[in-house]
Each structure stands twice: as structure tokens, then as C-alpha cells.
């Protein structure tokens, strides 16, 4: 299979700036653009609350611009395509999110994101911006074995962390409590992704890697990083039957647990396919006596037009369910 190479963009070097400008023009009631690269809530949250920022690479839309808004994040610091932003821009974003209650920098674990956030934290200290902390988040079971969880990559399952953390930071909890909540959500979340296709880089205009039309890869990362290896492409039920057991074993999720489920579209999978996949996942979870509290199916963190999906589970308690159900109003994450 050849990926589509022609993209509807203009000059690649203007891509991120133009895309953010378009996003903020379309959703001006939700988000506004500052310094070309900071996507901020149109209405800042109340003074004294903990600010939430994330600095990460672009190219995964709607992540993370779509998560800016009430009940969600305060500032997205947008890097180039698939590249974390530099530390000085991150410091600007941190300043912009500061409402007096401290700022939590969320890092979806990738080398670049972590290194730049660390540098930004050091700069903050040097510049006397106190009350800033960082939390490193990961969920992808394919990227390091059980027992070495902190080496794992951050992928689509952080969806759950973002939502709960956003709701939490609308309340009166302090920075330490926010960080603890993020860690709790992270430690109860596991994801596994697969893909049927490659995708083209909008920067180079070339296909990122080769994949045969009848192949699939289980465990693929958000930037096309390899997973557990290639195999023959399977049908929907077979694919779920292959992916769900390792996911359940990893935490482990057990009979009696209550979970949130995400099926994240990495790009060009159809919702039609995702609904068929969900049907099997729901049946298998019911068989395992694991109760589904709520589910989401959609394209929340994409890898360009890659045809694949991630299955993510988050074990929830009463606090987490309440945070999950709290209202949210991002352009691409709405909870009534």
C-alpha cells in the first residue's frame, strides 16, 4: 500500500503556523493564539487555580489544540511536526498558564518532550518562576516490559489523564494534588496500538516507512515508531482477540474492575471499522466480568493519515468517574 503523499498544505515551513491560525480562527470562542505557537483558552480560568500546560509536537491533530478549553488544558505549546517545542517557548507557555496556583507541565513521554520540558523547568527556576512542576506520562505497553513502566511511551491513552486532570484543575486542589491525580490516572491506564498502513510526512513529503498492503503492526507508536513486529493483517474480531489479552494482563485489569475504554483512530481508519472493533472489545470485557463505565471512539491523537487504532483502558474509582463526567468544552473534546 502506498500512502497518499500529496497533502493539502502550502509551504511546509509555514504549516504549523498556518494550521494553528486556522484552528484558532474557527474556534475563537474556545481558543486564542499568542506568539504564533501558544494556543490558550479564550477565557482564562479563575485566579488561584492550577494551570495546565503541555508542550508537544504538532501533526497529531486534534491533539493537543483540541484539548484547550474549560475543564481541560490552559495552554498548548505547539512544536514543529512531531518535534517538541524548545524550552524558551515552553517558559512563555508556562507564564501564560500561571493563574497564581502554580503550573503543571504535562509530558507525554518521548525523549524530545522530556528533554525540553526539563530544560524549561531549569529556566523557570533560573528566572524565579516558582511553583512549577512536571509530570511524565506513559501508557504504551509495547514500548517497555512490565516492571519498566517509566520507560514506556505516551500515546493515545493519556486521553483519560488529560480529561480527569483538566476537571481536577477546575477545582480547588493544589499543584501537588494535581500531580498526584495525574500519576494515579496514568498508573491505571494501559494502551496498545496497531496499524495497517504508513503515512506521509508533511515535512519531507515522503512516506515515513514501508508497509505491505496485507501487513499489520501491533504496538506501533504515535510517530510510527515500531512495535512488536509485523504480521499478516487480520479481521476485526481476531485483531481485538490478539490485542486485548496482553492489555488486560499488564495492569492487570481484573474481574469486578470498572474501566473507561478508548478506541483512538490514528488517522484513516473509518468509524465503521472502529464500531465493529468496539463491539468485540465490549463483548470480551463483559466475558472477563470487567464493567465498562463509558467509552469514546474517535480520532483524538492521530499520526497523520495512518490507518490504525489504539485500544486504551483506564481503571476508575469514584473520584475518577466524577472527574470523567465533569463538563468539558474543548473544540474536539466535549462533555455536557
Amino acid at each position, binding site marked *: 500500500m502506498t500512502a497518499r503523499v500529496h497533502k493539502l498544505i502550502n509551504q511546509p*515551513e509555514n504549516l504549523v503556523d498556518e494550521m494553528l491560525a486556522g484552528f484558532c480562527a474557527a474556534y475563537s470562542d474556545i481558543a486564542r493564539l499568542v506568539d504564533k505557537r501558544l494556543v490558550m483558552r479564550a477565557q482564562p480560568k479563575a485566579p488561584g487555580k492550577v494551570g495546565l500546560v503541555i508542550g508537544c*509536537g504538532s501533526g497529531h491533530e486534534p491533539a493537543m489544540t483540541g484539548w484547550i478549553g474549560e475543564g481541560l488544558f490552559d495552554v498548548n505549546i505547539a*512544536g*514543529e*511536526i*512531531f*518535534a*517538541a*517545542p*524548545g*524550552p*524558551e*517557548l515552553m517558559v512563555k507557555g508556562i507564564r501564560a498558564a500561571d493563574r497564581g496556583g502554580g503550573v503543571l507541565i504535562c509530558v507525554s513521554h*518521548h*525523549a*524530545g518532550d522530556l*528533554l*525540553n520540558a*526539563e*530544560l524549561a523547568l531549569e529556566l523557570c527556576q533560573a528566572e524565579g518562576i516558582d511553583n512549577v512542576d512536571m509530570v511524565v506520562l506513559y501508557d504504551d505497553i*509495547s*514500548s517497555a516490559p512490565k516492571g519498566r513502566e517509566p520507560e514506556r*511511551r505516551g500515546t493515545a491513552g493519556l486521553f483519560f489523564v488529560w480529561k480527569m486532570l483538566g476537571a481536577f484543575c477546575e477545582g480547588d486542589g493544589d499543584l501537588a494534588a494535581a500531580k498526584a491525580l495525574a500519576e494515579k490516572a496514568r498508573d491505571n491506564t494501559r494502551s496498545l496500538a496497531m496499524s495497517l498502513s504508513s503515512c506521509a*510526512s508533511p*515535512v*519531507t513529503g*515522503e512516506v*515515513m*516507512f514501508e508497509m505491505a498492503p496485507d501487513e499489520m503492526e501491533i504496538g506501533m*507508536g504515535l*510517530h*510510527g*515508531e*515500531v*512495535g512488536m513486529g509485523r504480521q499478516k493483517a487480520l479481521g476485526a474480531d481476531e485483531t481485538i482477540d490478539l490485542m486485548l489479552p496482553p492489555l488486560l494482563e499488564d495492569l492487570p485489569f481484573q474481574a469486578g474492575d470498572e474501566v473507561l475504554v478508548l478506541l483512538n483512530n490514528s488517522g484513516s481508519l473509518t468509524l465503521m471499522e472502529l464500531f465493529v472493533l468496539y463491539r468485540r472489545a465490549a463483548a470480551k470485557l463483559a466475558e472477563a466480568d470487567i464493567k465498562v463505565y463509558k467509552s469514546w471512539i474517535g480520532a483524538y491523537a492521530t499520526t497523520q493519515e495512518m490507518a490504525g487504532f489504539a485500544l486504551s483502558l483506564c481503571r476508575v474509582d469514584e473520584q475518577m468517574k466524577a472527574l470523567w463526567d465533569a463538563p468539558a468544552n474543548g473544540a474536539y473534546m466535549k462533555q455536557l
Partner: protein
Amino acid sequence: MNAIGSEELGALIRAMAQRVAAERDALNRLDAALGDGDHGTSISRAFAAAVEDIEALQEPSLSAIWLTTAKALMNRMGGASGAIFGAFFIKGVASLRDVDRVSNHLMAGALAAGLGSVKARGRAAVGDKTMVDALAPAVAAFEAADDFSAAWAAAATAARKGAESTRDLVARQGRAKFLGERAIGQQDPGATTVALMFEAANDWWKENQA
């Protein structure tokens, strides 16, 4: 000549910028095999920004040029290697402050300080299949040389050898880590960039100063 001033330093940075720009697509291809295929684009964008920012400097002192390069790489490159290249240059700024001309020995000190910072920042050692595999031998060769001519030549050779040595390695840092055994046979793009930087410096030196 065995000490260089700000003019020569600016020219060396420009030479590096030209070299990585010329190799942009090749570097992208190396990164496509091991990572996400953007290394060439990122490093040439950042070096181009460094050259531009250096030209805009009111007082282009040695340390200002070094700092400007550091900041451009750190802020305009993005991703893992932006942070790491930035860390490399920023560490040397202190040792160049208030000097008009720098000897090969002083320069060696700045490079060694940068190497230390890169290792600390990236939690990477020689053998991890990262830019450290080119940078560590290059800095060692530079330190051991008696003058600039010998230093650039030895560093360029060592960096290239180091970059080539990454082919046989499994990655322990960066995106390539997840490839496991499948990384074997592929040369690390960051290490290749380091080799290109030292080779560009050496070529410029041979043409202009040797």
C-alpha cells in the same frame, strides 16, 4: 594560526550550516529508518536560524556567537536533538566569556564541557547509538591535538568513524530504542550530523587557515 577570533568562529558555524543543509535529505532518510524522518529538516532549519541570528548580532563576540548558536539549536530545532545540541553549545559559553581569541586548547575545553552536558542531559554513553558515539571520540581527538589544523582534522576523522560505528549497534536512547535488533545496519542520524559538523569545520580550516 593557532587562535581564532569571532570572525573565524562565525565562518565555521556558517560552514556547518551549509553542510547540514546540503545533507538534509540524506539525514532525513537516516532518521526515517531509525526514527521519525525529520532530523535533516530540523537540524538544517536550526542551523540556518543560528546563522541568521549571528548576522543580526550587534556585538558578535566569541561567547555571543556561541550562545546564539546554542539558543537557535535549542529553540528552533525542537525534539530530542534540539535540546541536546543546545545543551552542547550552551555549556561552552562560560569558558569563552571575555576572551577575544580562543586557542585550540581553550576550544577543546569548551567542547569537552559540552560533551559532558550532552551525556548528562541525554543519559547516553558511548555505545548507545546516539550522537555521543561521534561526539565523544571527536572531542577526545580534538583535545589530544597540538594545534587547530591537527585538531579539526583528527576530530573530523574520529567523528566520522564514530558515526559509522553506530551501524552495528542496538539503540539504548532516542526513538530508535524501540527497534531493538532491527536498528542494526542503520547509521544514527544525530551521530552523522556530528560528523558532518566536524568535517565542515575541517574543510573550512584547510581552505582558509591551514
